[in-house]
């Protein structure tokens, strides 16, 4: 989109809503990220005694009623939809769109999830087995579990009559949703987009699937130390849940109505490894190319990017991403480029991860604070960048990149700019 004959529309981020293991609310989450705290703990929702991993990043103290979700509606929406509604409520209010309502046809909603309503799928299979199909399956089963009911419910609630669907790309879902939503505004199909990701897979099947794949940390005795990207002792990722939603808005429109602009979304790229279902391509070739394409899309030289929120999940792939960053950024990777994995604090929110991490980039640019990588006690020699270890750093950078890579070899990179 960098070659069109007319200037493309610029994208302002005017609202952020977060529901995470660190807290419910953008400030609640961001303040704990800045303090270098962990949101990981023992799983409380079900008995994990037979699982190899018994820790996760659960959203705590979520009260649906606080977000206008009636008791009967909680049976009609899996948690991932409820989280998305709560995050949207925060983002819409922060952007001032509750008072200053957009033209319904000029805004849309791209909110995706990696897996959908596993919790209700599991409980329904149980009741189907016990009671049979007539009484074992709720008439609300289908709309309570399918992924696009997150944007569907959002559109009903906020009178959003533009494009409304979900992208599904595993752990890069939210990043793709944000990037594609920006494209939509750039080409004039909408003026605002509600975009991001949501996930609620802390369930027996969700946890068990990753246990079986040997993908999760088994550091069950030290939950807050379990997510330790870039260390020698990392032993897998930590499953988390939550939602991250942003309001993307045509910059001219945002300025005209006097909205507070948190950051600008200036670059996006998506590509694939075409290599393996779960492992990155050798040397991180796909990831490297995606970063290069995002820089090109934003019209930036590598030296202009001051911070990368890495995908780094605390698995073997952390060193591959490190190599990919070095490949894309050259000498700058060792001089002046800060990289951190905030998954060290909030764990891996799967389909919501890229949204949360892009939001963290936006807040880092707004406040001039680079979030840390905690638990970096024993760096892996193959992971040798400036990872902002242990403590947040007060540094104002101009551009920040957020990396998201998913199962299926799918990649997305976003670049955000500081708005002074």
């Amino acid at each position, binding site marked *: 989109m960098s070659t069109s004959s007319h200037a493309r529309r610029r994208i302002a981020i005017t609202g952020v809503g977060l529901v995470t293991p660190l807290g419910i609310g953008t400030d609640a989450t961001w303040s704990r990220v800045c303090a270098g705290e962990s949101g990981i703990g023992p799983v409380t929702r079900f008995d994990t005694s037979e699982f190899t991993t018994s820790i996760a990043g659960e959203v705590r103290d979520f009260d649906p009623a606080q977000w206008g979700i009636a008791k*009967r509606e909680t*049976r009609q929406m899996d948690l991932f939809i409820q989280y998305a509604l709560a995050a949207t409520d925060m983002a819409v209010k922060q952007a001032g769109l509750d008072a200053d309502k957009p033209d319904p046809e000029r805004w849309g909603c791209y909110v995706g999830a990696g897996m959908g309503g596993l919790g209700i799928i599991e409980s329904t299979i149980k009741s189907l087995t016990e*009671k049979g199909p*007539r*009484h074992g399956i*709720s*008439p*609300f089963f289908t*709309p309570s579990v399918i992924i696009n009911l997150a944007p569907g419910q959002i559109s009903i609630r906020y009178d959003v009559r533009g494009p409304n669907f979900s992208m599904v790309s595993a752990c890069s879902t939210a990043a793709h949703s944000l990037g594609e939503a920006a494209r939509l505004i750039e080409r004039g199909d909408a003026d605002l987009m509600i975009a991001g990701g949501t996930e609620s897979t802390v369930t027996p099947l969700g946890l068990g699937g990753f246990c079986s794949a040997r993908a999760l940390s088994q550091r069950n005795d030290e939950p807050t130390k379990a997510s330790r990207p870039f260390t020698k002792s990392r032993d897998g990722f930590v499953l988390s849940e939550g939602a991250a939603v942003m309001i993307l808005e045509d910059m001219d429109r945002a300025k005209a109505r006097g909205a507070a602009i948190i950051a600008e979304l200036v670059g996006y790229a998506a590509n694939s490894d075409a290599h393996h279902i779960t492992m990155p391509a050798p040397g991180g070739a796909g990831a490297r190319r995606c970063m290069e394409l995002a820089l090109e899309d934003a019209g930036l030289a590598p030296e202009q990017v001051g911070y990368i929120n890495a995908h780094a999940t605390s698995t073997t792939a952390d060193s591959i991403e490190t190599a990919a960053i070095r490949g894309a950024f050259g000498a700058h990777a060792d001089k002046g480029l800060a990289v951190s994995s905030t998954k060290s604090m909030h764990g891996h929110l799967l389909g919501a991860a890229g949204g949360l991490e892009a939001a963290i980039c936006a807040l880092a640019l707004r406040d001039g604070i680079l979030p840390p990588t905690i638990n970096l006690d024993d760096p892996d020699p193959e992971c040798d960048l400036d990872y902002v270890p242990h403590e947040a750093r007060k540094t104002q950078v101009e551009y920040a990149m957020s990396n998201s890579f998913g199962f299926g070899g799918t990649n997305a990179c976003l670049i955000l700019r500081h708005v002074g």
Partner: protein
Amino acid sequence: MSDIKDQVVEIICEQLDVKPEDVAEAKSFTEDLQADSLAIVELVLALEEKFDVKIPDDEVDKIKTVGDAINYIKNHAG
């Protein structure tokens, strides 16, 4: 049989998130109690389980008010 009425009202309150004082016999499920077609199906299934009856689909279509539901159960339960 007033026992049945109380039990039906209780299930309606539970399923539709409404208060007993709002569940008069003349109330329409769709007009007054904001039930959509899926919520009515959910309610019917809950009544079936509670009273061990099977309400055929063409009978479901005739249950429009709280009174219709109470009368159906009174006539078919037990």
